Structures are given as C-alpha cells and as structure tokens.
C-alpha cells in the first residue's frame, strides 16, 4: 500500500513536470523568445539536416511569422549531419540552424560505436571533474573545520 502510494506520487510528479514542460514550450512567446521555432516575421526558421532519420524533413516551409522560409540540409559522414536553412519573407530575413543528424539505416553502425565511446568519454571526463571538485571541497572543509571555521594560518593558538 505504501509502495503504491509512493509510486502514485512519483508518477503524478513526473506527469506534472511533463505537462509543465509541454505547456511551457508550446507557448509561442517562449518559443520566439528562445528562438526555437522560427524567426517569426522574418520567415527564417531552423532547418534540419536531411538524414536517414529525418528524411523528407530537411526542407520545411515556415508556418509562423509573416513570410515563408525554406530550409535544407545534407547529411554528411556516417550519421553526422549538418543542416542549414534559409528563409525569405516579406521584408526579407534569414534563419539558420544546425543539428546533428542521425543516420539510422544501418545499425549497429561504426558511427554508433564511436558515438557510444564519445558518450562514455564525456561521462568519464565530467565525472572526474566532479570527483576532483568534491575532494577539494572536502579538503577545504576539513581544513576550516579543524580550526574552528578559520583557515590554518589565521587560527589563533588559544
């Protein structure tokens, strides 16, 4: 019973966070503010790299703003894609965007293994940094604590 109650609370919390995220990012003001959706009024918008994963979506016409825009993208290398988009609208304007393209026609691909290695490397480097910072923090904490909150050189020998 206790577990069910806890689980319900967790699920409710996660659902609420999820709804909050959707509501937040669906807000046109927020989208424009973050520059995520389109350069409204100027016709430019972020375009995706056309890769195996997002085929057919490399070129899009902007739906927002006063003008219209077209984006195009090309997948390069094994799964890595660089996308660029240009937009034209009433009064001109250009938008551009770049994102990683994922080529998923063949898997597990060598790019997949390399990607996994990259993820692991990033994790290890960041973890090492955090561990080092925690150890330094603890060392500083011990140094201050043992002297009544003062650094060793400032502590009076009472």
């Amino acid at each position: 019973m206790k577990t069910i109650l806890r689980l319900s609370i967790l699920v409710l919390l996660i659902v609420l966070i999820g709804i909050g995220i959707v509501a937040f990012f669906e807000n046109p003001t927020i989208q424009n503010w973050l520059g995520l959706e389109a350069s409204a009024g100027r016709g430019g918008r972020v375009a995706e790299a056309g890769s195996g994963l997002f085929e057919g979506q490399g070129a899009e016409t902007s739906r927002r703003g006063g003008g219209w825009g077209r984006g195009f993208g090309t997948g390069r290398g094994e799964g890595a894609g660089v996308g660029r988009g240009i937009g034209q609208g009433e009064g001109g304007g250009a938008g551009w965007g770049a994102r990683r393209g994922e080529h998923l026609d063949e898997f597990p691909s060598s790019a997949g293994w390399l990607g996994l290695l990259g993820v692991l490397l990033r994790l290890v480097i960041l973890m090492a940094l955090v561990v080092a910072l925690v150890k330094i923090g603890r060392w500083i904490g011990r140094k201050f604590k043992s002297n009544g909150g003062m650094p060793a050189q400032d502590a009076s020998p009472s």
Partner: protein
Amino acid sequence: MTLKNFLLDLLLFVAVLIAFEPRLSGIPIHEWLSLALGITLLVHLLWHWDWIINVGKRYFKRLFHLSRLKFFVDLLFLIAFVTVMVSGLLISRSILPLFGIQTDHRSIWRVLHSLSADLSLLFLAIHLGLNWDWIVCTLKRYVWTPLRQGLSGLSLRMKNEAEVCPQPVEETHGRLP
C-alpha cells in the same frame, strides 16, 4: 539492499548508455529502451524514497552540504530526464504510431530532445561523481573482491552487508549531519 541497488543502478547505467546513442540501437530499440528506462527510474526513486523525503524536509536547514547539492542535482536531472522522455514521445516514430497516435515532428521538440539529452548526460555525470565513494566501495565489494576471492566470497559478503559501504544516514532515518 545495497546489492539490489547496485544491480539496478548498473542496469540503468548500461541502458542509459545505449539509449543515448540511437545510431547504435536503431530507433525502435532506442524508444522502447528509453520507456523501460523511465519505468526503472521509478523503481530507483522508490528505493531511495527515504533519502528524498529526509533531505527534502531538511533542505533549507543547512544549505551547504553535499546531500543538498545531490538533491538539487537530482531534481535538475529528473526535470531534464522528463523533458527527454516527453520530447521523445512527441517525436516518437515507433511507440506512439504503434497505437495509432500521430506524433508531432516540429523542430522544437527535436531540438529540445537533443538539448535535454545533453543536459541529462551532464547531470548524470554530476550525479555519479557526487556518489563516487559509494560506487567505488560497492564495485570493490561486489566485483573486485569476489573476482579476487572467487565466487564464494560474494555470498559471504552479502551477509555482512551493513559493515561495508553503509547507506547514507538519510536513508536509515538517522539525523542529518
């Protein structure tokens, strides 16, 4: 409990690594694995319920403490993870279409999916870094020592679980330091 925690965390870690690289698994496995990961994360949170409640209750009593930092990072990690899940579901190509639900393929959710995944990785690294002592201690107990002593060492050590790698005081209903 420590062994169960360790095994679940190990499973979560491997699943996260595979889920983070869709080029390795392909989209259907990526999506279903991520969904399973979400459910497993619920179990992980349930098993650390006491810690969450105890630190949450006393959060503002003494701000500069490692438990508070862990709590804050974990909260950010949860938000980033939920963002990955929600945006992933919204651009789903396998799970939702299977149930006849049309998904949203606007760039915003794809950008968000990518951004929040990168953020999740960052928070995961911080989360692991902050719990590094426990990870090293548990790895020594359940992997390194049994490897050295042979498999019989594992059952021997499981009996004396409380002696090594103790749980954080917050999980044993103890007072916070």
